[in-house]
């Protein structure tokens, strides 16, 4: 196998395709989504089964740490009472994206991988971003009315109105592509390292995968945090606070 072949093999957008009822689905993404989701729910139900106030398990403490952090962030940015549903949303996003990204560490030895990190497919990241930003708009309009919710875009200075609108439109794009770019780049790095001679590739492979796990954590954290921050726009406006 020559290096050129490997380089061709990592062509972006290459997926295992399933054809179902006339539509094409990226089977690898769906598989890994199900695996990651399964792991998250399995861990969640393990916690649920043994949850206790006096004798928490380590897993329970980990979940509690996530919940506490999310609750604190939500409380600080908008107040939990403004949008209590943001807590489970941010928690689910963080746990799911984190576990998903960790799948990047596990190789299946097939090309393309049977279970690549699902966030290396824009379909997942778009879906998450649309869910988050869509919910944000719906809740914002329902809470503050059309004029009230979008009013802050059209405030003085008028010169910035186009920028405000672009920023609003860009929110889902940046949210999804940031995650996609980071994780997708990770898979490309692994493919590049795999092109190295077998004698030395293990060292950069180990180092990269450790780093990649860290990136996975950071990206999950950023996605959840940005979700919370974006949702703060549905909170009642404080005078002079929004711009």
């Amino acid at each position, binding site marked *: 196998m020559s290096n050129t072949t490997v380089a061709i093999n990592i062509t972006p957008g290459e997926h295992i*395709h399933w054809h179902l009822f006339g539509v094409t689905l990226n089977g690898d993404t769906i598989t890994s989504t199900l695996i990651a989701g399964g792991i*998250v729910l399995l861990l969640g139900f393990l916690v649920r089964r043994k949850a206790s*106030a006096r004798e928490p398990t380590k897993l329970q403490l980990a979940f*509690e740490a996530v*919940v506490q952090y999310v609750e604190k962030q939500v409380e600080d940015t908008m107040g939990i009472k403004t949008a209590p549903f943001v*807590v489970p949303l941010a928690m689910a996003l963080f746990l799911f994206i984190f576990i998903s990204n960790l799948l990047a560490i596990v190789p299946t030895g097939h090309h393309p991988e049977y279970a690549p990190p699902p966030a290396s497919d824009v379909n*997942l990241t778009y879906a998450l971003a649309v869910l988050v930003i869509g919910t944000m708009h719906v809740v914002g309009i329902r809470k503050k009315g059309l004029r009230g919710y979008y009013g802050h875009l059209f405030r003085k200075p008028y010169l910035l109105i186009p920028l405000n609108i672009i920023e609003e439109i860009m929110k889902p794009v940046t949210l999804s592509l940031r995650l996609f770019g980071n994780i997708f780049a990770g898979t490309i790095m692994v493919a590049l390292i795999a092109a190295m001679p077998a004698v030395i590739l293990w060292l950069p492979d180990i180092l990269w995968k450790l780093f990649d796990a860290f990136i996975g954590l950071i990206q999950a954290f950023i996605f959840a945090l940005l979700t919370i921050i974006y949702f703060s726009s549905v909170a009642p406006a404080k005078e002079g606070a929004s711009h």
Partner: protein
Amino acid sequence: MAHHTELAAGNFLVPNATFIAEFIAFLLILLIIARYILPRVEGPLRERQEIIRKQMEDSDEAKRKLAEAEEKYKAALVEAREEAAQIREHARAEAQRTIEELRAQALEEQARIIARGEEQLATQRNAIVRELRTEIGTLAVELSEKIIDQRLSDDAQVRATVDSFIAGLEAQDIAQAGSQS
């Protein structure tokens, strides 16, 4: 279900139907977490926070009670010391009084003993005087005999002689009583 690899025909940033599948999948995960998992994490968390809050409150309460008890203890100690001092003072005064009482009693006793002694002496002396007076008759007879023997010529001389004899006897009695007491 066809299962094969394809190179992406177009731009890899363009989504396909997988989008819908992913959307639904995450929505399900979100709903399950929100409905079943989050409450079971939050519940014990709140409960533990409540327990900790209560324990801290209890601890504060215990500290307060301890301080209170210490305060009471100190107060009681001071009181006890005062009381002890009072008792000591009282005891000293009592002892002093007892001593004085006993001394007064002793003096009284002494005076009584002395008085009784004197009384006894006086009684004895009187008895002796009485006894002597009864003996005076005998003595007088003896004296008369002596006078007769001397062939008394003068009455006055005789009376003087008797008087001086009696005076001599009385002087002897007083001297005897004085040496006895």
